[in-house]
């Protein structure tokens, strides 16, 4: 049961990154692909129906930890307390920017909110990447299962570690580039005109950067956490996820130059699901790696809740997750076709 819930939690986080990732990407790129007011509104119209629904997957992932791995959630949220509050502030500011931007026609008002939207999207991509780096590198857990982290120390990955070091910054930059590349494909698929042209061009450049950074980040992960990859070949799910990631990035690189934007975007989703899935499957059963030795790490077994409650929760998960997927399918169908900037006084 702990294995099942570990997989569910990893899957929910991966879906969250693939979904909210494309609207983060659209936010990161909006100053570059959309220059006029109506182009900015076209970008917002493209992500408008999706972004808040996408964020619900983060709640679902957090909920999975709450129900199945309460000790992991307690230790992680406490240890990363300030970083998580910063993420929350960025999410709130970004939501306000999207909702308030077009209510007032004043150029200064709109430029200010456009800046908040782009800056918050950029910071969120880096924060989530750095958080992922922290999990892979490990945190200074004590024997009681708690830890505190400074924002940074000496930028090495040896104790005393901080939230930011050369490795977690590298993963943060990789997340920024990958989510921008992901968002560029979404915009290329969902928009037309000048925004489409610029997104397509940026997508090509960004995906070359992703293809270059991916092996570099993988090598760095091996240096920081040598236990991560050796066991991978014997784990079926890890191998499957790697195939998904390679197939995904190959699809992007083949379909993008030929104008297959939907196929390329789906390839990009597969790539993100694949790299997160492969990392999670290799990381198992660890959920919070300790820098002070494996004995201190919190695993799915030591951090898990009561088996009986996990079984009950599984039944509700099997009811709830198809409903969330159905909602996504309905919204995608309702808003099929190219996004058009809303008229003045309406929409985003």
């Amino acid at each position, binding site marked *: 049961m702990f294995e099942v819930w570990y997989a569910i939690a990893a899957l929910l986080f991966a879906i969250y990154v693939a979904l909210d990732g494309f609207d983060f990407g659209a936010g990161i790129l909006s100053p570059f692909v959309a220059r006029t007011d109506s182009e900015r509104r076209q970008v917002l119209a493209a992500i408008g129906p999706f972004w808040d629904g996408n964020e619900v997957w983060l709640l679902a992932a957090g909920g999975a930890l709450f129900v199945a791995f309460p000790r992991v959630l307690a230790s992680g949220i*406490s240890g990363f*307390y*300030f970083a998580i509050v910063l993420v929350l502030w960025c999410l*709130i500011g970004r939501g306000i920017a999207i909702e308030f931007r077009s209510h007032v026609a004043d150029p200064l008002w709109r430029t200010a909110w456009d800046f908040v939207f782009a800056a918050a999207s950029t910071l969120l991509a880096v924060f989530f990447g750095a958080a992922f780096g922290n999990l892979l590198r490990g945190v200074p857990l004590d024997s*009681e299962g708690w*830890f505190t982290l400074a924002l940074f120390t000496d930028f090495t990955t040896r104790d005393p570690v901080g939230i930011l070091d050369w490795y977690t910054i590298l993963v943060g930059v990789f997340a920024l580039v990958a989510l921008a590349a992901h968002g560029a494909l979404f915009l290329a698929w969902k928009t037309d005109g000048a925004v489409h042209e610029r997104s397509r061009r940026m997508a090509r450049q960004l995906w070359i950067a992703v293809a270059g950074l991916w092996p570099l980040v993988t090598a760095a992960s091996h240096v920081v956490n040598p236990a991560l990859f050796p066991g991978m070949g014997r784990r079926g799910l890890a191998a499957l996820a790697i195939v998904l990631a390679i197939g995904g990035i190959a699809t992007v690189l083949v379909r993008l130059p030929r104008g297959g934007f939907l196929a390329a975007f789906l390839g990009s989703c597969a790539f993100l699901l694949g790299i997160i899935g492969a990392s999670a499957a290799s990381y198992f059963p660890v959920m919070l790696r300790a820098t002070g030795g494996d004995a201190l790490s919190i695993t799915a077994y030591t951090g898990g809740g009561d088996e009986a409650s996990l079984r009950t929760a599984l039944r509700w998960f099997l009811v709830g997750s198809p409903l969330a997927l159905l909602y996504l399918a309905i919204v995608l169908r309702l808003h099929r076709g190219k996004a058009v900037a809303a008229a003045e*006084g*309406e929409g985003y």
Partner: protein
Amino acid sequence: MTAELGRQPWLVYGLFRTAQGSSPSVHAGTVLFTLMGFCGLYLVLGVLFLFLIGREIAHGPGALAPVAGGGAEVAHV
């Protein structure tokens, strides 16, 4: 507020005390700082909300305009 304060010192009534549920690794100063941050953020949000609502009220409802598909409906402005 009534529910939260009335239940003290329990986090889960009869089962789990607030003191047992607080994080040992989060310091009071950090909590105070983030609490002030949240208050500031929501204060700004509240002021912006009042500003936008005030504008909307000053502007008044739009004129009755014919809508495609027949019938008259108040145009949202």
